[in-house]
């Protein structure tokens, strides 16, 4: 029996993350280079706008906070532990994160309800959308469960999960501490890997192309097919290195 659980742990906590990462990296790059046309957030607001507000906004806002929270604990665990040194700050952090988690849950439920009930939205819903939505729902429920029943997550994440995740990234996987975690936590971890695995095959790719460059690009864009200052010069047709056509 122990051997069986060992195999399970090894597969889900060592094998799966590597599979997920490799598939995510290669899949996303290939999707971007080979099938750019499919790279879209596939917004359905045009078909239904009102219900979407109560789904999309809480979901995305909560998701932003939670992903950045997890990322912070992964990147600067000491900072998180230092912050949590004072109980008031710890509770503030935990409560805030929990509220954002609830926001994600509410948003997700609204999004799922909208997909199921609106006949127009059903037309633009793929099986992958349902897969992703159910995975996310599972993820946020286990996340809230973990946060509620195994306190205080922000602290033990920084001291237990961060070393585990780093061990994965440094190619020296060490799961002794994680293997001893409650099964809900493990489910949450496996859920996270599954989502990463599915990113290149779903509309989740849109988070990879968040249009932040919009902030510093000039408003107007004019594209010239030829460098216009060069194109009419007499020697241009005769030059060996011709101006490039973009």
């Amino acid at each position: 029996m122990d051997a069986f659980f060992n195999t399970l742990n090894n597969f889900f906590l060592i094998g799966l993350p590597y599979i997920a990462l490799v598939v995510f990296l290669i899949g996303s790059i290939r999707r971007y280079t080979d099938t750019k046309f499919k790279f879209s957030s596939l917004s359905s607001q045009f078909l239904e706008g009102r219900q979407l507000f109560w789904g999309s906004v809480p979901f995305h806002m909560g998701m932003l906070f939670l992903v950045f929270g997890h990322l912070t604990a992964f990147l600067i665990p000491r900072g998180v532990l230092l912050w949590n040194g004072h109980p008031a700050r710890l509770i503030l952090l935990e409560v805030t994160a929990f509220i954002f988690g609830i926001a994600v849950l509410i948003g997700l439920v609204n999004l799922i309800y909208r997909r199921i009930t609106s006949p127009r939205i059903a037309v633009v819903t793929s099986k992958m959308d349902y897969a992703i939505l159910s995975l996310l729902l599972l993820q946020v429920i286990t996340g809230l469960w973990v946060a509620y029943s195994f306190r205080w997550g922000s602290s033990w994440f920084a001291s237990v999960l961060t070393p585990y995740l780093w061990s994965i990234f440094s190619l020296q996987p060490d799961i002794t501490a994680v293997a001893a975690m409650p099964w809900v936590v493990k489910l949450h971890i496996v859920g996270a890997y599954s989502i990463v695995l599915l990113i290149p095959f779903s509309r989740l790719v849109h988070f990879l192309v968040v249009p932040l460059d919009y902030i510093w690009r000039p408003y107007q864009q004019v594209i010239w097919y030829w460098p216009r200052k060069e194109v009419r010069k007499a020697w241009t047709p005769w030059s060996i290195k011709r101006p490039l056509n973009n």
Partner: protein
Amino acid sequence: MDVRAQISMVFHLDKCIGCHTCSIACKNIWTDRKGAEYMWWNNVETKPGTGYPTKWENQEVYKGGWEKRNGTIALKGAGKKKGLLNIFHNPNLPVIDDYYEPFTYKYLDLIESPAADDQPTARPVSLITGKPIDIKMGPNWDDDLSGTPDYARQDPNLENLSPAEQEAMFQLERMAFFYLPRICNHCLNPACVASCPSGAIYKRGEDGVVLINQQVCRAWRMCVTACPYKKSYYNWHTGKSEKCILCYPRIEAGYAPACMHSCVGRIRYLGVVLYDADLIEGAASSDTDNLVDNQLNMLLDPFDPRVIQAAKENGVADSTIKAAQYSPVYKFVKQWGLALPLHPEFRTLPMLFYVPPLLPVMASLSEQNTRQGEKMDPIAKFWPDNWLYDTSTEELWGTIDQARFPLKYMANLFAAGDEAKVKAVLKKLMAVRIHRRGVTVGDIPPEKVEQAMREAGLDADTAEEIYKLTSLAKFDERFVIPPAHREQAIEMLEFTGDTKGSVGFGFKEKPQRGL
């Protein structure tokens, strides 16, 4: 001086008969695909009317275009801050019901239904869900419905008209309307380009056509909000926005765009104008009173040696400069001052100009002006309620001054509310008619013709030219298309038939929806 070339258009509204041939030509080539059925890159509206999408001109609702803020301009409903903050849910995005739910009919039922007591019917079905629907709206739902409370009286352009003026406009006997065909304006200060967070929309430098790169569009859908003319459409199936491409594959092959080529009334003109790109910002942010003037000032004289020199330095081809010199657009807009931009107050500097219609203005009621009525053609008096067009021309501008169609309404459409501008154009159109009547019928004393021409600011030669380009112009005079210079490899090198049913040119990936 930063001289650039722009392919620009003129629509002569007096000639538009509202047949929608242009819309069909466009639809058959470009938007007969899933997700694009509701799009009409070219549509024809009845004015006064609510248009498509419903009341698109009301920017208090749709938040399109630019607005003046502290001396400079900013996008009304999009932009860097608003666009990124509203990216999860765009509060100013029109939904499909603002356009209409696309539909077809179950024609097969007519043939395949079993024998019964009743005649079989072809029920309408939604092209989105495939289920039977009750049709509530269509792209030209208010066609010819001037005066109706649901449509014509909801026209946003009536806002600045007094209730009395509105009432007068919609009296049954006086009712008038005209058609307003619309395509993308290929603006010089395009709001769609400025609003696109992923930078998918761009203006082609060589000819000024505004395009959406289908591979870069990520469905952030800000362009739909930002375009005040609502000429950027979201394809709900592919998750990409699409818009009029001015048939650039046709233009590059020397053909006129499909809508223009098919135009029955020959109302459309297309040609190159040279403009000074340094003046864009200033023109777009000028006071409302100067908007039209400043926009027209940007257009340069293609015969001016300095302009030609600067154009050459900027890589504008000789053939393009020559096309600009023969451009019917330049003649209508700059030389003759007959064409005005649609809704210049949106500040996008549209490059599609309209010759405002004289007909709904000219047709006047004689019963309110018996003195004029007596001077009408005898044939008109056959009619019991003699209210035919007043063609007597005894009163030179009487019909314009006492127009049954308030000039204010036209001014709201074409001159940001400046009646004088519209009036000047209408006077010129009228003067050309008076001149031609003097030539062909000869019942107008020459002094009268001269007076009309003087007051309108025309001379006989110009009037003759206007008449010729308006009424007699052949294909090559209406469409002066510069060669595409394939030797310089602008993107389109493919046969249009190969990519029929796909999303565009330049890539061979199937236009398949993402997962």
